[in-house]
């Protein structure tokens, strides 16, 4: 029988042997375990790391866990175990650790694992007294087993993995933070986001988004006491925190906003000046990007009247104005921003811009929302890289958003894994958008939704590189009548959805995003609202008719249905005009409807390989690459657009990134 792993015997040799044994034990199963973890054989194949300095117990547990069909790795030293976990991130699902160990206290290990890897940790001890168990709970252990441990207890530990994953997603939904991603990443958040499908996969498989209360509560707390911790826990810029930040910055004035003063104004315990400084840096870049976008857009197109003028001024004034105008509810923007900022450095440059853009949109000047919208949109598009990571998060919480979303979410859940693999970007974007949208939707009902959407839609159009507008696809996207889609968007954030769909007539992304966002975080207020041109969208719409804007003054946003986009629309209209021609047909009702879908894969570029997308999506894309997206037929469920969207979400995000995006708008 396998020799007991005397992992702790000697340092080097131990490490080597332990690793070797770990590898040996788990090597074959690592890849297999990954699959098994999510296979129908679950919980068989659960990858367990058991740490106990008592060799007797370690050996017994090893065999017991093996009997449960788990993939076991045994370590007798906590330090070795921690190294193993660090080196092989994503290779374990759960950690079983003894409380009393000579080299490191079990609770210390628990803290490290929770912070760095966000895995569920189960404590074990011969001491079963209430006080001891209480201590375990206080430290955040998922469970506390009392020796002697029976096989039946071990057979049940998989529940902690699942629970953590689901709670994590749920929390994400509520908070809109990308804590999980942050946890997974050990890098600093100041730099650009580095996303990887891997991480997305990690998120899914591991599930363990450490949504634990300890983590959430430490919204900014840093742990500096343990020298053995190589990295400090990242500050998660949740929506609330970000809003505080933004308000503090506004209070001070962007030019005068220095980290120290911001910190004082925010008055958040545990937040350090460095955290604020890095966040501010990101924010500034985002604003700059926003400004650039504005100028770029206006120049590119016939130039909406205001755009040029606004270009220069696009800054916090604009942002503020926009926010003030209510077109982009500050919360939405904040959320968006938070989302963007919170996103792991998956996106390179774009990521940075996103926050700025979001911010800009948040503050939005009163002028043409377009400008703001554009930035807004851009980030979304760009966020693709983070999609994979973000997507699962956003998708899962989607349920909370609305019924439509809910269903969508569940659908997306199932598809999360595959979608992640596909185009992390798409997912990311969609998730971000979704989150944003959802937030928006929650906070603002129809009116705002429409305006926001329109705005965003406008913005999207502006973006040259943005989504492709598969006008036709949009129709399919919406399922034709899209009444379902369109209507739906009205119903819940549907409006939001719709708008996006319009925008992304071609790109499912847009629709997806919309759909996603609402599901994930309803926090994104206005933006989504604006987009979700409610049911009316389809009717008015999109089409190209600048004058269509039913409700909006600008009308310009034909597709956006511009109903609600006041200022923004006019700019859009100009822009749209450009596109309109091309997509004329696209922007027909169908396209509008597609917009409603928001999540429909209209434009998702195939590159993102969104499997989830239903065929409709592809249709939207004019048969472009998006085709891939089998997409969820958005139209199918009148109220469930989101459901579809959810799936589509990923692809949609991709679409955003497509250049087609613009055309979508025109449509």
């Amino acid at each position, binding site marked *: 029988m396998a020799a007991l792993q005397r992992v702790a015997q000697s340092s080097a040799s131990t490490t080597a042997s332990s690793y070797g044994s770990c590898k040996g034990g788990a090597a074959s199963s690592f890849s297999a375990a990954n699959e098994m973890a999510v296979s129908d054989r679950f919980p068989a194949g659960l990858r367990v790391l058991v740490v106990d300095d*008592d060799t007797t*117990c370690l050996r017994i547990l090893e065999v017991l866990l093996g009997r449960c069909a788990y993939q076991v790795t045994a370590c007798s030293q906590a330090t070795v175990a921690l190294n193993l976990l660090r080196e092989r991130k994503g290779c374990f699902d759960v950690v079983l650790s003894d409380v009393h160990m000579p080299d490191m206290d079990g609770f210390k290990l628990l803290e490290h694992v929770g912070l760095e890897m966000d895995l569920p940790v189960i404590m074990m001890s*011969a*001491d079963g007294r209430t006080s001891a168990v209480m201590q375990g709970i206080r430290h955040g252990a998922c469970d506390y087993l009392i020796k002697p441990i*029976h096989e039946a207890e071990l057979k049940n530990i998989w529940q902690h993995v699942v629970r953590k994953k689901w709670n994590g997603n749920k929390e994400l939904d509520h908070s809109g933070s990308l804590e999980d991603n942050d946890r997974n990443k050990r890098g600093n958040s100041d730099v650009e986001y580095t996303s990887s499908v891997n991480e997305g996969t990690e998120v899914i498989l591991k599930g363990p988004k450490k949504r634990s209360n300890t983590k959430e509560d430490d919204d900014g707390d840093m742990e500096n006491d343990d020298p053995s911790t190589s990295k400090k826990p990242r500050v998660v810029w949740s929506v609330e925190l970000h809003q505080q930040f933004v308000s503090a910055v506004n209070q001070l004035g962007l030019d005068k906003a220095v980290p120290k003063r911001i910190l004082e104004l925010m008055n958040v315990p545990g937040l350090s000046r460095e955290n604020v400084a890095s966040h501010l840096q990101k924010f500034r870049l985002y604003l700059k990007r926003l400004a650039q976008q504005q100028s770029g857009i206006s120049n590119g197109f016939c130039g909406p009247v205001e755009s040029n003028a606004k270009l220069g001024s696009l800054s916090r004034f604009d942002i503020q104005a926009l926010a003030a105008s209510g077109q982009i509810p500050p919360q939405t923007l904040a959320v968006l921003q938070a989302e963007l900022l919170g996103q792991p450095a998956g996106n390179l440059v774009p990521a940075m811009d996103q926050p700025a853009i979001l911010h800009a949109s948040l503050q939005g000047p009163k002028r043409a929302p377009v400008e703001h919208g554009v930035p807004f949109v851009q980030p979304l598009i760009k966020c693709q890289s983070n999609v994979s990571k973000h997507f699962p998060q956003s998708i899962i919480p989607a349920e909370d958003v609305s019924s439509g979303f809910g269903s969508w979410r569940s659908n997306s859940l199932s598809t999360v894994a595959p979608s992640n693999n596909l185009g992390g970007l798409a997912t990311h974007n969609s998730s971000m958008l979704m989150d944003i949208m959802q937030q928006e939707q929650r906070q603002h009902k129809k009116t705002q939704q429409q305006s926001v959407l329109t705005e965003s839609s406008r913005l999207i159009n502006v973006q040259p590189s943005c989504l492709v507008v598969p006008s036709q696809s949009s129709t399919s996207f919406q399922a034709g009548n899209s009444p379902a889609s369109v209507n739906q968007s009205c119903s819940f954030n549907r409006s939001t959805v719709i708008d996006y769909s319009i925008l992304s007539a071609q790109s499912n992304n847009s629709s997806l995003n919309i759909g996603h966002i609402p599901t994930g975080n309803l926090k994104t207020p206005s933006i989504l609202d604006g987009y979700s041109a409610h049911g009316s969208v389809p009717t008015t719409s999109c089409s190209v008719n600048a004058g269509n804007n039913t409700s909006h003054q600008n009308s310009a946003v034909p597709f956006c249905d511009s109903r609600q986009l006041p200022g923004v629309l006019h700019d859009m209209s100009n822009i749209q005009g450009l596109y309109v021609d091309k997509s004329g047909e696209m922007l027909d009702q169908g396209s509008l409807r597609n917009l409603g879908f928001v999540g429909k894969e209209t434009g998702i570029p195939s590159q993102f390989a969104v499997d989830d997308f239903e065929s409709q999506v592809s249709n939207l894309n004019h048969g472009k690459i998006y085709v891939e997206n089998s997409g969820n037929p958005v139209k199918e469920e009148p109220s469930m657009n989101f459901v579809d969207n959810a799936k589509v979400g990923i692809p949609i995000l991709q679409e955003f990134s497509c250049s087609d995006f613009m055309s979508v708008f025109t449509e």
Partner: protein
Amino acid sequence: MLGLGVDRLRADMNRLLAMLFHQGVLDEQFLQLQQLQDESSPNFVSEVVNIYFHESEKLLRNLRELLMDREFSDYKKMGTHLNQFMGSSSSIGAKRIRNVCVAFRAASEHNNRAGCLRALEVLEHEYCYLKNKLHELFQIEQQRVLAAGVRYPMQNN
């Protein structure tokens, strides 16, 4: 003849086990250990028990050294040793030893040195008894395996 031996040996084993269970020296956790023994891990029980003996003797030595020390005051350290001893004992099903450890821990938490010493003696006694009995058990098992192994070739003849 040998075949009879196998049956007899098995009966001896069962009798011994029953007695140990009855005395409270072992509990059902030991049965779980036995259940974990199969073709893939044929000597699992003896392997684990030998590890237990090895570790326990170390722990007992440490405890003895701590208590014999005149300036002994580190009850916390003693508690750590105790905790581990308790954990491993309960994991193999050594119920009586575990119970003594509980009493030992109580004395230690009250900083009752005398009480700890008494508990340690009982502990050492219990441990010796368990070790002897388990050795006896393994010997019977070994003989039984041997007898069973020898028997088969004879059958083939």
